[in-house]
C-alpha cells in the first residue's frame, strides 16, 4: 500500500517549482502552459519547460539537429510550432494511459481501485475510439481541433518575453553542459 502510494506520487512528473509551500507537479492540464511559468522560480533543471524540452520535445525533432544546435540556437528555431503542438497533443492524449501503465506496470487500460479491484477504464482522449485509421492511432476530429487550438496557443506564447527568456535560459544551460563535457574530454 505504501509502495503504491509512493510510486503514484513519484510517477507524476515533479518539477522544482514551489507554490504555497508545496511542490508543483507537471500534469496533463498544465503542460500546454509550461511556457508561461516564470524562469527564475525554483531549480532551473526542473522547470516544466526544461523538462519538456529535455524529455519530450527533443524526441520530436531530428536528433542530429537537436544535439548539434541546442547550445547555439533557441528552441524556437530548432523546433517548429507544429512539432511542439504535436508533442503537447500526444502528451495530453495519452497522459492518463501512460501514467496508469507506468504506475501499476499493467499494459491494460484499467486502473486498479483502492480495494484492489478493477476501477475506472482509462482511454486516450483523442485516439483509439474505433475510428477509421485505428492502425496508426486513429486521430479523431476533436483531436484535429485540439491540435489547431494548441498550435495557436504555442504560436502566441512563443512571442512572449517569458518564453524568450526561458529559451535563452535553456540555451545557456546547454552551453555550460557542452563546455563541461569538452573540458572533461580534454582531461
Amino acid at each position, binding site marked *: 500500500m*505504501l*509502495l503504491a502510494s*509512493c*510510486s503514484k506520487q*513519484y*510517477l507524476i*512528473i*515533479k518539477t522544482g517549482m514551489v507554490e504555497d509551500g508545496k511542490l508543483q507537479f507537471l500534469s496533463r492540464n498544465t503542460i500546454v502552459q509550461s511556457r508561461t511559468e516564470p524562469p527564475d522560480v525554483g531549480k532551473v533543471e526542473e522547470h516544466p519547460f526544461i*523538462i519538456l524540452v529535455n*524529455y*519530450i520535445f*527533443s*524526441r*520530436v*525533432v*531530428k536528433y542530429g539537429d537537436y544535439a548539434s544546435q541546442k547550445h547555439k540556437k533557441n528552441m524556437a528555431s530548432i523546433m*517548429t510550432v*507544429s*512539432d511542439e*503542438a*504535436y*508533442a503537447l497533443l*500526444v*502528451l495530453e492524449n*495519452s497522459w492518463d494511459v*501512460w501514467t496508469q*501503465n*507506468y*504506475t*501499476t*506496470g499493467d499494459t491494460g487500460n484499467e486502473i486498479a481501485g483502492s480495494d484492489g479491484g478493477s476501477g475506472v477504464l482509462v482511454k486516450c482522449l483523442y485516439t483509439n475510439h474505433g475510428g477509421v*485509421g485505428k*492502425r*496508426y*492511432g486513429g*486521430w479523431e476530429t476533436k483531436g*484535429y481541433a485540439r*491540435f489547431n487550438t494548441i498550435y495557436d496557443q504555442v504560436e502566441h506564447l512563443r512571442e512572449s518575453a517569458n518564453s524568450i527568456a526561458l529559451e535563452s535560459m535553456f540555451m545557456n544551460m546547454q552551453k555550460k553542459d557542452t563546455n563541461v563535457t569538452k573540458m572533461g574530454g580534454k582531461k
Partner: protein
Amino acid sequence: MWANRHNSASLSDTDSIPDNPASDGYDDYQLEEYNESEESVKGDGRLTAEQERDKLQILLSESTQEIKRLRELAAENNRLTIGVVGGIGRCKHWTNLLASWVREELFPKVKFVTGDYDLEMREPDSIAGAVRYHFPSLRNGTDEEFESFWFTYKCDINKIMSEKRNAVSTSIRKGFKSKFKMRCRACCWLPVPNNT
C-alpha cells in the same frame, strides 16, 4: 407590317395563288426561296431525301465510332505516360526519395493530411506544389508528367505521415517513461516499479 401585308395579300390575290400554304404571310423573296427548295426536293424525289438521311445516319455512326476510337487512344496514351514516369508499377528510387522528403521536410510543417482534398490542390504552397518545387526533375518537367507522377505517388504521403506520427508518438512515450524512472531512482528510496 406583317398583319397589313398579310391582309392585303389575302384580300387581293386569293384566287390567283394555288394551294400553297407558304404563300400566306410571306414576302416575295421568301416565297421564291421556298419554291426553289420545294422544287429541288420534288425534282430529286422522295428517295433522294431518304438517301440523304441514310447518308447522314451513316456519317453519324462513323463519327461516333471515330470518337470512341480516339477516346480509347487517349486512355491508352495516358496509361503509357504513367508507365513511363513511374516505371513498371512503382519506382523504388522515387518511393524512397519521397519518403525521406516527407519525413524531413514536410512533417515538421504539416502533421495531418485530412482527406484527398489537401492532395488535390495545385497551388505553390500546397503539398503537390511543394513536392514539385523540391525535386528538380519534376520542376523542369511538364504538367502532364507531374500529374502522372502525382497520380501514382500521392497516396504515399498520408501513409508515410501516419508512420512518422506513430514513430514520434512512440518516442515521446519512451521519453515520458524514462523521466518517471529517473525521478524514482534519484529521489525515492523505495524500489522502482518493475514495468519493463
